[in-house]
């Protein structure tokens, strides 16, 4: 077990490093950042001076290593090209907004996904199951941002019940979190359902039933507990899905979180900020996966054998 955790930890660190490297090199794929940063009418000498001052004239690998050193030692991703504020500060400033939105969305999604998935699995092939699985299919086909815009049109414009954008109060959170939750719902629901179905096919459930236990007891005490194992993994793995969804949701609702910052920074070519966000997101995803794996290994000893 210890060996497993240590090995996974090393893998996680390596993945993070690789991601930081890719995102760094990505900036050098096309042209040098100097051209993106300076106005097009800049003189060649100006460009040279600018490059020197930013250290852009050194070999790419050296630049990456010095970037990495600064990040690891001081958490310094460089200053934003646009606002001249340290990129990390900009990122940290935006974390709470995204966190609030994400938590609410996960809560909403799971509050629906767990009962729906269970009903669908227990009442397999009934009308309820068919309806729920069809709903999941519809949900998966729904472009998240369109769903958000439709919510705005219906509840914001036509009915006028909810504010269209902004982040001042809880009311502002309702539509964004529903949008993001709806994005997660079908995936979660399918996973609960298939996890539950797996468990229901196990011998011990049949035994429990054969013992004459009440169906409710069987479901809650035996089936649900074991069906939760995939849920743990999923919640960890979902961080990537969640963050991706947050980027879109925040853009649609002008929610002042990390996602919107990411989109704005990419559009403006503000690479220090983009890099800080990418590394931060990658860290979240990798740690999420790591925790999920370890937790699953604790719950289900068979997985360690892999």
């Amino acid at each position, binding site marked *: 077990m210890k*060996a497993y955790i*240590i*090995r996974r930890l*090393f893998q996680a660190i390596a993945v993070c490093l690789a991601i930081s490297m890719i995102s760094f090199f990505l900036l050098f794929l096309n042209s040098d950042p100097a051209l993106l940063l300076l106005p097009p009418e800049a003189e060649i000498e100006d460009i040279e001076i600018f490059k020197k001052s930013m250290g852009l004239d050194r070999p790419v690998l050296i630049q990456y290593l010095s970037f990495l050193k600064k990040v690891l030692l001081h958490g310094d991703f460089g200053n934003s090209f646009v606002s001249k504020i340290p990129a990390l500060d900009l990122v940290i400033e935006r974390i709470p907004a995204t966190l609030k939105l994400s938590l609410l969305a996960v809560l909403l999604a799971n509050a629906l996904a767990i009962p729906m998935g269970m009903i669908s699995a227990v009442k397999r092939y009934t009308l309820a199951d068919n309806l729920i699985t069809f709903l999941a299919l519809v949900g998966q086909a729904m472009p998240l941002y369109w769903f958000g815009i439709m919510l705005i049109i219906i509840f914001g414009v036509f009915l006028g019940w909810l504010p269209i954008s902004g982040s001042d109060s809880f009311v502002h959170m309702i539509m964004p979190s529903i949008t993001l939750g709806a994005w997660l719902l079908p995936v979660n629901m399918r996973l609960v359902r298939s996890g539950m179905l797996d468990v229901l096919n196990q011998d011990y459930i049949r035994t429990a039933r054969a013992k004459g236990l009440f169906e409710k007891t069987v479901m809650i005490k035996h089936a649900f507990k074991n069906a939760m194992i995939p849920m743990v993994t999923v919640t960890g793995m979902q961080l990537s899905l969640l963050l991706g969804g947050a980027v879109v949701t925040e853009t649609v609702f002008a929610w002042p979180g990390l996602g919107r910052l990411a989109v704005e920074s990419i559009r403006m070519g503000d690479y220090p900020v983009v890099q800080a966000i990418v590394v931060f997101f990658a860290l979240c995803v990798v740690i999420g996966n790591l925790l999920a794996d370890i937790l699953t290994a604790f719950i289900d000893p068979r997985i360690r054998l892999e």
Partner: protein
Amino acid sequence: MIQNYTDSILAVRGLKKYFPIKTGVLKKTTGFVRAVDDISFILRRGETLGVVGESGCGKSTVARCLMKLYDITEGAIYFNGKNIANFNDSKLLEYRMMVQMIFQDPYASLNPRMRVKDIIGEAIRVHGLSKNRSWKEDVKDLLNNVGLRESHMARYPHEFSGGQRQRIGIARALAMKPKLIIADEPVSALDVSIQAQIINLLDRLKADFGLSYLIIAHDLAVVEHISDRIIVMYLGNIMETASDKDLYNQPAHPYTRALLNAIPDVGKKQKGNRRMLIKGDVPSPINPPSGCCFHTRCPDMFSLCSREKPKMVEISKNHWVSCLKYKR
């Protein structure tokens, strides 16, 4: 134990195959599964050699080492006097032509997405084995040889019964025009009524194609009639080897006697009245017992058995036993 190499098509010397067990952060090798632990035997040209043992005794591993599907840990395999480990690509191709394999599970050994003609004929096509005629003609001949019909050519494996599938597998092996066929439990997945048919087919093909056989089985009854000589394996070691007749009439090793006793003796008189069956399970090949590997289950065990590893002893002509009872 090996007298002369000249008439041997295959000679195995001190073959070992250990599978490493990896644990820890860096996946360090912390132990080995000793699937095959130092065995030697020869297979004469035109001979049918049976290899018998319980599941997990390493007999399938031997087959896969012989086919070069596994890299061997130690020892050497000589084909026509040449070490197969040293074969380069063209030599290996030649070897693959000469030595073919029939697999255990006729349901897993045929590609479900290929037609019969392609299963059998692919090798002929790829290696250009048909002379002056279409490869399909060769496939037709092969089908006839194994008792199938030409009309089966365009069918898929799932349309056949287990016995028919095994016939297809045999035809596929014959397509390479081999000299030696290694059959890994060729009938153990089949109904008893079908088993004899396949065994008889193998026997007939041997004469028709001038083949040598190495036939692996977990059941002595299967190899009884077809084999000239039989090797009894236990836990990666050879326990006894003798001609068909000697082994049945004068089994020397306690393990062989136990195996013979396990054959249901309907209408047949068994040597010795006492029905002896061995107890317990096969020990783990990760930590095999010290001394004689069979001593933990041996009915004739005495004090020396757990300390000294027995050597092969020739008790009568061509009858070799690895048991301390026969130590000279």
